[in-house]
């Protein structure tokens, strides 16, 4: 999280008290999880798939995985910021649909491509802003607010299209779904740009410090003079904007406006965030952890497909992986609670 966070055990600071909470196995696992981290899990998974699935380690397949990961990774980036404030956004899948539909409708109506793209992102940010207002100013639980918006935004996506998909085969921005730049698929390029922006926001800006502060201790943040409501509003807007970007990619890939786009995507996105080490209790986590989390889910899905594992077993395995990730999170929290 911070370049000068030095906590190596062989460099003890004399006037600090280092007590890693409860002793025992829980603390030991948490200790190694924090240090070796999720990256080792990814490498292990890749090695496993390379051995089991013969054509897993090919350039084509790697590009394939990267492309399939991009949408979930972008959703998860936005969600990371929200979860860092101890919030949650269940509506990102529905925002994806509304923004995707909106941008296609704009493009079909003859709006210039750059404006249609911007429109999609703005629609997403606006949906997020609405979530943010309810959470920050009316102090409603984020889970309930975004459960509601998940439903009404899905309804909105359907009603914009009268319930029918709208095919747009000559969509101006179809490139960001299917095109490539120097062999790298455009959605992957977009994903990298999104992560660079989010990394900068979280690590280098005042807003980023405020996000961690609000998530770590909301009352202390208020008393320290942080505008907590505004920080919360911005986090939900960012999650919405990221979902908007994901919506553009989705529309471009399927060359149409789909009211069912992104259904259930919020779960994979939450899973990526948690796998990436961000605490659901807020205040702890890294944006690149989320990227690794998203790639793990992508590699797992891809590998299971290559291995011809039936779809329903894929679901079982994915679910178990998510529970293990959350168990690790609560173990970490437990070992920090005391001490």
């Amino acid at each position, binding site marked *: 999280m*911070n370049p*000068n*966070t*030095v*906590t190596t*055990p*062989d460099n*003890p*600071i*004399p*006037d*600090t*008290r*280092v*007590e*890693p909470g*409860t*002793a*025992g196995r829980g603390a030991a696992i948490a200790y190694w999880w924090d240090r070796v981290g999720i990256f080792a899990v990814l490498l292990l998974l890749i090695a496993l798939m390379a051995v089991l699935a013969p054509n897993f380690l090919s350039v084509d397949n790697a590009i394939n995985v990267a492309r399939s990961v991009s949408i979930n990774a972008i959703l998860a980036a936005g969600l990371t910021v929200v979860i860092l404030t101890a919030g949650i956004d269940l509506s990102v899948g529905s925002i994806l649909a509304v923004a995707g539909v909106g941008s296609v409708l704009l493009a079909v109506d003859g709006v210039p491509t750059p404006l249609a793209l911007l429109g999609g992102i703005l629609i997403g940010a606006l949906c997020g802003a609405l979530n943010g207002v309810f959470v920050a100013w009316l102090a409603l639980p984020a889970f309930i607010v975004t459960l509601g918006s998940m439903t009404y935004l899905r309804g909105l996506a359907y009603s914009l299209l009268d319930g029918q998909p709208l095919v747009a085969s000559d969509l101006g921005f179809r490139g960001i779904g299917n095109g490539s730049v120097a062999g790298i698929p455009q959605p992957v390029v977009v994903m990298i740009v999104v992560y660079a922006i989010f990394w900068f926001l979280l690590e*280098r*800006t*005042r*807003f980023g*410090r*405020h996000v*961690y*502060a609000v998530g*770590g*201790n909301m*009352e*202390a*943040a*208020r*008393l*320290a*003079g*942080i*505008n907590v409501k505004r920080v919360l509003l911005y986090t939900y807007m960012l999650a919405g904007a990221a979902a908007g970007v994901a919506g553009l990619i989705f529309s471009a890939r399927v060359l149409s406006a789909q009211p069912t786009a992104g259904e259930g995507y919020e779960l994979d996105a939450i899973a990526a965030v948690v796998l990436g080490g961000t605490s659901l209790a807020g*205040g*702890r986590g890294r944006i690149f952890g989320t990227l690794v989390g998203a790639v793990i889910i992508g590699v797992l899905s891809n590998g299971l497909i290559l291995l011809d594992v039936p779809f329903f077993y894929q679901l079982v395995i994915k679910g178990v992986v998510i529970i293990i990730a959350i168990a690790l999170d609560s173990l970490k929290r437990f070992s*920090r609670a*005391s001490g």
Partner: protein
Amino acid sequence: MSGTPAPLLEVEGISKRFGATLALSNVSFDVRAGEVHALMGENGAGKSTLMKIISGNYQPDTGSVRIDSSPVALASPRDAMAAGVAIIHQELNTIPEMTVAENLATGNEPVRFGMLDRRKMVEQAREKLARVGADIDPNRPIGRLSVGMQQMVEIARAVAENAKLLVLDEPTAALSRTESEQLFALIRAMRSRGMGLVYISHRMEEVWELADRVTVFRDGQLIGTRDMRATGPDRVQPGDIVRMMVGRDIDDLYVRTPHPAGDVRLSVRELTGPGGIGPVSFDVRSGQVVGMVGLIGAGRTEVARLIYGADRRTGGTVTLDGRPLQVRNPIDGIRAGVGLLPESRKDQALFLDLTVKDNVGISTLADYSSVGVVRGGPLVKAVRTVMDQLKVRSNALGLESRALSGGNQQKLVLGRLLLQRPKLMILDEPTRGVDIGAKSEIYRLVNEIARTGTAVLVISSDLPEALGISDQLLVMRGGRIAASLDAREATEEAVMQHATGVYSDDATPNEDAGIPR
């Protein structure tokens, strides 16, 4: 005292290591039946680690524990309970929404025909409460009781479960004077019934009043055990204990350099707030340290929060340097030049997951950013400067604040205030849960801040401290200011009379009077 009773608890050669830190190094220690054994030492000295081993929360790396002369393996708090060891933590273990009776019965509810026998549960609760002399209605939700009463309930539960050894970890930290007195009476009663009591406290006068023996820890080592009942040449002096705790003499703990106060900076007139606070009126001058004292619930913290903007005022005017201080939230307060060190470090001030640097800089990031981007260099430089001023090692800047001791954590929050360069600094219980070394540095700093012309308002429940570092004392009672005293002339007795509203001609002789801290 009677002769030397057999030890109830014996701990031999205990060591415990966390990573590279040796939290306890070859510690041997015992508690006799019928004694109060006080543990003292700065935060992180090893007291809590030892108590967590005795109560089964930690496993020692080496060494053994014997209870009633037989070796025991305490693998869990449940084992410790079965062996007769109970611990009353600083943070209470009660379930606020449940009644006193339900809390007392947790895990052992009386059942009749497979149904909860509520009448019997209440009856049992009454018996348990009576055993500790607590007059508490078993049917009240425990969350509505004061902290002191909740503590009584916890002790009642421990006694009911036949605890032979009771560990009390800073039990008076959140208690009023009266509640503390009640607790002391109960502790004495338990002692005379033959229980062994381990009493952890930072407050010297309490230890003086209660303890039969005192053991001092420093840096994971047991420095020594002193018999407080010894007379003659072996008689223990307060200075002896302090020397053992810090490894050197601390003379003149309280620092207050007298110098003329300047113009009025803060002026509060007829200020009122929700919950029957006010009206209060007072001034704080440039360079003046004003102490605000009173019992828990007298409204001191509330007044501070109203001035700062943390809570809404209902009336009155406040001016700072002659300009109206109209604040709707802490953002306004900080902007206007008010700095607040909140009452509860952990709940209201610290970001445990953030680094030292971020904790110190969080309120003033705007001063070290351009277009919202934090400029790392200037921020680090500024933080390093205040950390030097506070004597926190600067190589700790990148550490998570949770790794620091209570004293150093408090210094972080003070550092945050220093960076704000406030005109008025409000410190709410600045030394609560802070070791004596950090205390003396905080006092020095308060003196320093006042010298530069800042108006300082210090809220403290530690009377000797309030008397020692302030120029003027405001005594609050029932949401109002009951008296304004010159701190140099005021006595603890006078302050207590105003704080309690019980005035008597002959002040009752104070047991702990004359004991320096």
